[in-house]
C-alpha cells in the first residue's frame, strides 16, 4: 500500500464539507513505519503489496442509471436485470440471514458492501446509509469531526474513501429491546480494501446493544482488508453496549478504530474477541467529556500461526468523577504476536476520577511474543488509578493434574485456556451473547 491513494469518484464529491474531509484524509494518510510510535510493535508487512483493489462507488453507478458490473453485486452471479445498488431487485439475492444463538436485528455487509435489507426497528430508532445522512444533513456534525487523522492513519484512509457505512440514530429515552447485529461477511479472493464508517448517535437516556460479527467463508488463505471506523456519540445518561467478534480469514487484515464521545452520566461498555486475521488491530479511543461519564473496555484475543493481534486503548478523562475500567486477556501460540497498548489520560480538572487497566496474556510456545505498553498520564491530584501487565505460561501442575484424571493433553490445555479467558468473558452482561462468545474461544 502506498501513501498515494488512488482517486476514486465517490458520491457527494460535490458537497464541499464532505469533499473536504476526504481530501483531509487523503493528505493525512501515511502508512506507519517501524518508527511510528503508535505502531512500533505492530508490523504492517501484510499491507506491503501494491495490488490493492478498491470497489467503485455503488451510489454513482446507480445514479447514472447504468450497471457496469457483469455480475450482481449481491449474489455475484450474472443476470440480465441486475440493477445493483440500494434497490436491487435481484432474485439471486443471497440469503445472508444467519442463525445466531440470540434474538437480534440483523444488518448485513457482504465483502464490504452494505446489503440494503433493513431490519424492522421500533419507533425512535433510525438506520440509514451514511450517504443518506449526508444528504439529509445529519452527518455533517459527526463523521470524522473529532478524530485526529494525523494520529490515526487508517482513519485517514477511511476518510479519504468515505462512502460506505451506516448512520444510526436513537432518540431520547428509547431503549432498543434487541441487539443490533452488524454481520460482516467476506468471501472474496481479491485484495479488496473495504472502508466502512458507521456513526451511532444515542440520545439522552437511550440504550442500545450493538454486536459486530466479522466472518469469512471460502478459502482460508483469502486476503482482503477491512478498515473500519465506528463513531459513538452518547448524550446525557445514554448507554451503549458494544460487542465485537472478529473472526476474519487467516490471511486477511482488519483494522478498526472505535471512537467514543460520552456526555454527562453516559456509559460505554465494550467487549471485543479477536481471533482471526493475519494482522488485526482493535483500537478504542474514548473521550469522557462530562461528569460521571464512564467506560468499560474489555477484550480477549486468541491466536496462533504468525498472526499479529493488537489491542490499543486510549481513554481521556476530561471531567471530574469519570470512570474507566479495562481488562484485556490474551492467549498467544506458535509464532504469533500479541500487542497491547493502553493509555489512560486524566486532565487537570478531572478530580475524583477512577481509571483502572489490566492486561494479562498466556504464552503457549517459546516463540510466541507479547508486547505491552501500559501508560498513565495524570494531571489531576485526587484520582484513583492503576495499571498492570503480566504474561505467563500454562500451569504445568494444573495440566498434569487434569491429565492424571484421563483428560487428554490438548483437551486439558483447551479447558485451561477457556477458563483463563472466562474471567473477561464473564464481564458480558447479556447471557446469550456471553455464551456465544464463550463457544468461540
Amino acid at each position: 500500500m502506498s501513501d498515494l491513494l488512488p482517486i476514486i469518484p465517490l458520491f457527494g464529491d460535490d458537497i464541499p464539507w464532505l469533499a473536504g474531509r476526504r481530501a483531509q484524509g487523503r493528505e493525512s494518510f501515511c502508512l506507519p513505519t517501524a518508527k511510528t510510535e503508535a505502531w512500533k510493535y505492530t508490523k504492517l508487512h501484510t499491507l506491503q503489496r501494491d495490488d490493492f483493489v478498491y470497489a467503485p462507488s455503488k451510489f454513482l453507478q446507480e445514479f447514472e442509471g447504468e450497471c457496469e458490473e457483469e455480475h450482481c453485486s449481491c449474489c455475484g452471479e450474472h443476470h440480465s436485470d441486475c440493477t445493483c445498488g440500494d434497490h436491487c431487485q435481484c432474485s439471486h439475492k443471497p440469503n445472508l440471514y444467519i442463525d445466531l444463538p440470540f434474538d437480534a436485528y440483523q444488518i448485513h455487509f457482504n465483502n464490504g458492501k452494505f446489503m440494503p435489507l433493513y431490519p424492522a426497528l421500533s419507533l425512535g430508532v433510525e438506520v440509514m446509509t451514511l450517504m443518506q445522512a449526508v444528504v439529509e444533513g445529519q452527518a455533517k456534525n459527526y463523521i470524522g469531526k473529532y478524530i485526529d487523522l494525523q494520529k490515526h492513519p487508517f482513519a485517514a484512509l477511511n476518510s479519504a474513501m468515505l462512502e460506505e457505512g451506516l448512520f444510526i440514530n436513537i432518540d431520547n429515552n428509547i431503549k432498543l429491546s434487541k441487539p443490533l447485529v452488524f454481520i460482516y461477511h467476506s468471501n472474496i479472493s481479491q485484495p479488496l480494501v473495504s472502508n466502512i464508517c458507521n456513526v451511532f448517535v444515542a440520545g439522552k437516556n437511550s440504550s442500545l446493544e450493538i454486536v459486530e460479527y466479522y466472518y469469512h467463508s471460502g478459502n482460508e488463505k483469502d486476503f482482503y482488508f477491512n478498515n473500519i471506523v465506528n463513531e459513538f456519540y452518547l448524550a446525557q445518561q445514554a448507554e451503549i453496549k458494544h460487542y465485537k467478534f472478529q473472526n476474519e480469514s487467516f490471511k486477511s487484515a482488519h483494522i478498526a478504530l472505535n471512537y467514543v464521545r460520552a456526555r454527562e452520566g453516559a456509559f460505554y461498555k465494550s467487549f471485543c474477541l479477536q481471533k482471526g486475521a493475519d494482522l488485526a488491530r482493535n483500537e478504542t479511543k474514548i473521550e469522557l467529556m462530562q461528569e460521571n461519564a464512564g467506560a468499560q473496555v474489555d477484550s480477549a484475543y486468541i491466536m496462533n500461526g504468525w498472526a499479529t493481534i493488537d489491542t490499543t486503548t486510549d481513554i481521556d478523562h476530561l471531567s471530574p468523577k469519570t470512570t474507566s475500567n479495562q481488562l484485556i486477556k490474551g492467549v498467544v501460540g506458535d509464532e504469533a504476536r500479541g500487542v497491547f497498548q493502553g493509555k489512560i489520560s486524566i486532565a487537570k480538572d478531572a478530580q475524583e476520577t477512577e481509571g483502572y487497566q489490566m492486561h494479562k496474556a498466556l504464552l503457549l510456545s517459546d516463540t510466541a511474543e507479547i508486547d505491552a505498553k501500559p501508560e498513565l498520564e495524570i494531571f489531576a491530584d485526587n484520582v484513583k488509578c492503576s495499571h498492570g501487565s503480566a504474561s505467563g505460561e500454562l500451569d504445568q501442575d494444573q495440566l498434569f493434574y487434569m491429565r492424571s484424571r484421563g483428560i487428554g493433553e490438548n483437551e486439558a490445555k483447551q479447558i485451561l485456556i477457556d477458563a483463563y479467558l472466562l474471567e473477561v468473558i464473564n464481564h458480558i452482561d447479556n447471557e446469550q451473547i456471553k455464551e456465544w462468545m464463550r463457544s468461540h474461544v
Partner: protein
Amino acid sequence: MLLKIEDLCAKAGDKEIIKNFNLTVNEGEVHAIMGPNGAGKSTLSYVLTGKPGYEVTSGHIWFKGKDLLKMSVEERAREGLFLIMQYPVEIPGVPVTSFLKHAVNANRQYHGEPELDTMEFIKLLREEAKKLGIDPEMLKRPVNVGFSGGEKKRLEALQMTVLKPSLAILDEADSGLDIDAVKVVSKGVNELMNENRALLIITHYQKLLTYIQPHFVHIFADGHIVKSGDKSLSEEIEQNGYSAYTREKL
C-alpha cells in the same frame, strides 16, 4: 498381577532417587510403603503416574501386563491408575462438575463406551457425592479453589469413586498429616476396594494405617524396599522409628 515394578531406577531432575526398586501388587491387595521424610516416596508416585520432570533411567513397570512407561499420563489414568494427591491442584475458572465430566467422558471414550450427556453425568455425580457427604454446592465451585484440606480430600475421593480405578495410589508422604482429611479419603478408598482393585499407600506415619488395613507393609529407604512384612512391621516402625533401616540417622 496388576502391577509389577522391576529394578526401577529413576531421577528427579539430576538426582537419582529410586534405586533398583522392586514391587509386585496383585488384585485385592493393599500395600503400604513407609519411609522417612525425604526418602523419595512421592517420587515413586510421580514416576508411576508419569509426571514430567521425573526420568526413569532403567527398569520396567508392568501394569495389567502392559508397559506402563510407554504410556502417556492420560493413558495410564485411562488404564486405571489413580493418584490421590497429597496437595491437589487448584484450577480457577473450571467448575468441579465440568472438570469431572471431561475426565469421565475421556475415560469412557478410551474404553469405547458412549459419552454421558450432562444430565446423566450430573445424576451420577450427585449420587456419588451424596455417599461421601459432599454438598452439591461444592460441585459448582472451581476445582479446589478456596477448598479446606478436608474438602480437597473429599474431592479426591469423589474423583476416585467416579473414575473407579484398578489401582489407587494414596500419597500422604509428608509428615504433616491432616487426620480429618485422611478419614474422608480412607472411607472412600475402603468402599471402593474389592477383589479386582488394589491400593498402594505411601506414608510416613503408621497412624494412616489404622484407617486402612494393609496386607503388606514395605519399608522404603535409600531408594528401594529394605524390608517387607505384614501390618506388624508398621507397628515396629511406630515404636522404633526408621533409624534401623537408614544409613543416616534421622
